[in-house]
């Protein structure tokens, strides 16, 4: 089949809705559907797929690729559901004993996940030289001691992002001692910062069950439709992974919702460097696309009460949305909370009695919904609310932008009418059609990436070190399936380290590109 005939399916399984889109070979939208998410997921997924495929003749046979984004992993951690029992092996002794594994975890989450932790001698320096040799006997003894309980093993070594050999060795030892047992290696999950990376690795190992359910459900839904093509799962960095990889690294799906929404917004407008703001009924989330990918957070990210450092989009969340109540005197004008999903009954313009930001947007002429006449008695209050909302959005713009340069802003989501046409530091405001399925579109157009986050010495020159980091990131993207001719470096961040004798810097480089055609 010629590649331009091939159809692409994008699906986003959210907490409320399962959205599906069908794109043609040039990534143009052919069909879209919103379907309620069902508790078992598969039923809703199957139904959404059926409905979207029905809109295009002979679609099932022409589908070349299916890309799916899901919030299952996030929900499993939040609700402590379907989590596997994990044994944690840290390679870092005699260092690192001062802070043992899983310190600071919520007690109930720890109780439902961990069945044992150990620190064995091992780990490497930032140069890759061993700290001390890996104590393989200690690893074997620990694995023996948890062989009954452990359903998965998490392995985290000091500076393993620099040299992962010891983590691979422990994976071999697990196979030797325990046979088939899923293993999560920290260098494939997180970046520098041992405790946060270790936390992310343990969560990942606990999510393997969820990953298997999701991938099995997806495969069942597709085979019920007679579709047998390459299927991918969306990650939180705007790229996708194979089902096999998703089974091994489910934590990388956490945060894929906002990422897909941003990537979809970029695709709908053709912008590669832009702010994206998603305004809902209760919350507003803003992020930054750089070269088409969401900028990643450099600060640790909280997942279910646990500090982690795996790559996540760098987002600013505001408690601000169409349903935000315009405050009674005495509180801050926008601090009274939101009417949430009762918006269509309670807002003034919809016949209710609560002044909300959607009323303010209508009164200011930004939105044309409901009955504008019902806002007349509240004009002054609503105008003040619009001004306060604009100030908060302007502040968020500044927090999200990486420089003073003006950039376009893409407004999506049900409350996006709140976003004014003029914001300081913003070049233009886009309001794309189909923005309500931006998530699913983002999944459908996802690429693949490679990343490097390591400490490099500048002894042979800064340029050489950066070139080396870029080469490593590009190679990884190509190994992950990117088209070698189309891989771009999308992010280079340099953080020099203080208090050393020679110039040394932490380099974070990311390369990404579209998938190579089969």
């Amino acid at each position, binding site marked *: 089949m010629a590649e331009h005939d091939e159809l692409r399916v994008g699906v986003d399984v959210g907490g409320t809705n399962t959205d599906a889109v069908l794109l043609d070979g040039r990534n143009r939208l052919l069909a879209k559907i919103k379907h309620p998410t069902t508790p078992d997921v598969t039923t809703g997924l199957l139904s959404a797929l059926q409905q979207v495929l029905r809109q295009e003749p002979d679609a099932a046979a022409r589908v070349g690729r299916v890309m799916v984004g899901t919030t299952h992993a996030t929900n499993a951690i939040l609700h402590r559901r379907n989590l596997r029992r994990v044994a944690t092996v840290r390679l870092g002794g005699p260092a690192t004993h001062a*802070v043992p594994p899983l310190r600071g975890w919520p007690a109930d989450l720890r109780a439902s996940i961990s069945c044992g932790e150990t620190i064995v001698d091992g780990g490497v320096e930032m140069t890759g030289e061993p*700290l001390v040799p890996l104590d393989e006997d200690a690893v074997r003894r620990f694995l023996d001691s948890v062989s009954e309980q452990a359903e998965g093993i998490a392995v985290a070594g000091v500076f393993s992002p620099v040299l992962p050999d010891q983590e691979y060795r422990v994976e071999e030892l697990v196979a030797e001692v325990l046979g088939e047992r899923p293993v999560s290696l920290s260098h494939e999950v997180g970046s520098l910062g*041992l405790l946060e990376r270790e936390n992310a690795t343990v969560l990942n190992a606990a999510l393997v069950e969820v990953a298997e359910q999701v991938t099995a459900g997806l495969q069942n839904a597709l085979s019920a439709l007679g579709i047998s093509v390459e299927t991918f799962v969306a990650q939180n960095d705007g790229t996708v992974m194979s089902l096999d990889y998703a089974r091994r690294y489910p934590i990388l799906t956490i945060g894929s919702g906002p990422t897909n929404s941003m990537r979809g917004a970029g695709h709908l407008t053709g912008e590669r460097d832009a702010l994206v703001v998603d305004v809902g009924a209760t919350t507003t989330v803003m992020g930054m696309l750089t070269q088409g990918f969401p900028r990643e957070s450099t600060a640790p990210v909280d997942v279910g009460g646990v500090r982690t450092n795996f790559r996540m989009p760098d987002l600013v969340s505001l408690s601000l949305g169409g349903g935000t109540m315009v405050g009674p005197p005495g509180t801050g004008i926008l601090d009274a909370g939101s009417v949430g999903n009762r918006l269509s009954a309670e807002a003034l313009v919809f016949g209710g009695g609560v002044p909300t930001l959607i009323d303010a947007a209508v009164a200011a002429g930004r939105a044309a919904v409901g009955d504008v006449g019902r806002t007349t008695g509240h004009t002054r209050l609503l105008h003040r609310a619009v001004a306060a909302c604009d100030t908060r959005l302007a502040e968020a713009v*500044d927090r999200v932008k990486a420089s*003073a340069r003006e950039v376009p802003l893409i407004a999506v989501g049900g409350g996006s009418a709140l976003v004014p046409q003029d914001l300081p530091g913003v070049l233009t405001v886009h309001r794309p059609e189909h923005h309500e399925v931006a998530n699913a579109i983002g999944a459908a157009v996802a690429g693949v990436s490679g990343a490097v986050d390591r400490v490099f010495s500048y002894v042979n020159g800064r340029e050489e070190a950066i070139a080396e980091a870029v080469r490593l990131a590009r190679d990884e993207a190509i190994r992950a399936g990117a088209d070698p001719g189309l891989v771009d470096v999308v992010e280079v961040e*340099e953080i020099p380290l203080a208090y050393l004798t020679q*110039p040394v810097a932490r380099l974070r480089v990311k390369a990404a590109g579209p998938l190579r055609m089969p």
Partner: protein
Amino acid sequence: MQIDLGNLAALALGCTVSAGGGGGDPRIGELMAAEAIERCGPVEVRPLSSFGEAEVIMPCGMIGAPTVMMEKIPHGAEGRIIRETYEKQFGLPVAALMPFELGGLNGVLPVAWAAHAGLPLLDGDLMGRAFPELHMLTPHLSGMSGSPAVITDERRQTIVFDARDNVWLEKLVRNCVAALGGSACGGLYTMTAAEAAGPVIEGTVTRALGIGEALRRDGEDRVAAVARVTPLARLGQGKIIDIERRATGRFVQGSTLIEGHGVDAGRLFRLEFQNENLVLLEDGAPLATVPDVITLLNAHTGHGLVTEETRYGQRVEIVVFPAPAAWTSAAGLAAVGPRAFGYDFDFVPVQVSGG
């Protein structure tokens, strides 16, 4: 006075403020201290006057890159190993630990070691802030030797330095730390309580604690609350609009541009740093300089910003704390005044208004 699980976080927060932009994120030290306090109990904080003249005080902390310590976390017994090495050298028991640098990571790390060793912590330090080099400690001003200094690594290797002078000590220790992988723990300027009476800047542990507690109180002007704990000057508020950093070898140098907001709208501040914040300039003229402690407070969280973490768009308040008296003497300014960092102007003492 003691440090326990209830006030440890406030101490760590205060250490982000007292560091003046350097010293690294205290978080790993805070986690170590929490673990040690949980296992061994709270740490008693005592004034210098409570120690007998002959009792031995051991200043200690980490040396090297705090970023490295985020991976290569200490084992926790470093304080005990340094102490035992000294006790073998002097034949006298160490009576108390003391942070040599009350700023950043080093403000909390000795708390972990004191808990682990079951020893009190002296309420004071030898910098009253963060500085990059081992001769930038107050005892150096009065000609006291930092040697013998003890360095230990996570492999429990120890090295004792007996250097010709403190500049050599800095050079030897810094190179040794590089060989050990970029971070190590050490003790230096170990002294008796009688000797400590001159150089120790007293009360800095409780002061950092007070700053942290003031910042954690909700619902009021945080900076005004800090000003009630310790004198300070508010030099401006604004937004970071540019940040430039470069690794020059031993230091990270650079500058931050801050555009004034609110009452400071229309002003433009330039903050230059070398690991720590050095000078605050407006229209080319210094508003504040080392050794006064120049700190950017994150307007949203109240945290003191470490230079590694500053980025475009952050809303900040520029606060300056007067330097400890030792640093504003002629000898102090020669060691750590603006000219010592290559500037062609003299120290500009900050004018403190009442809280």
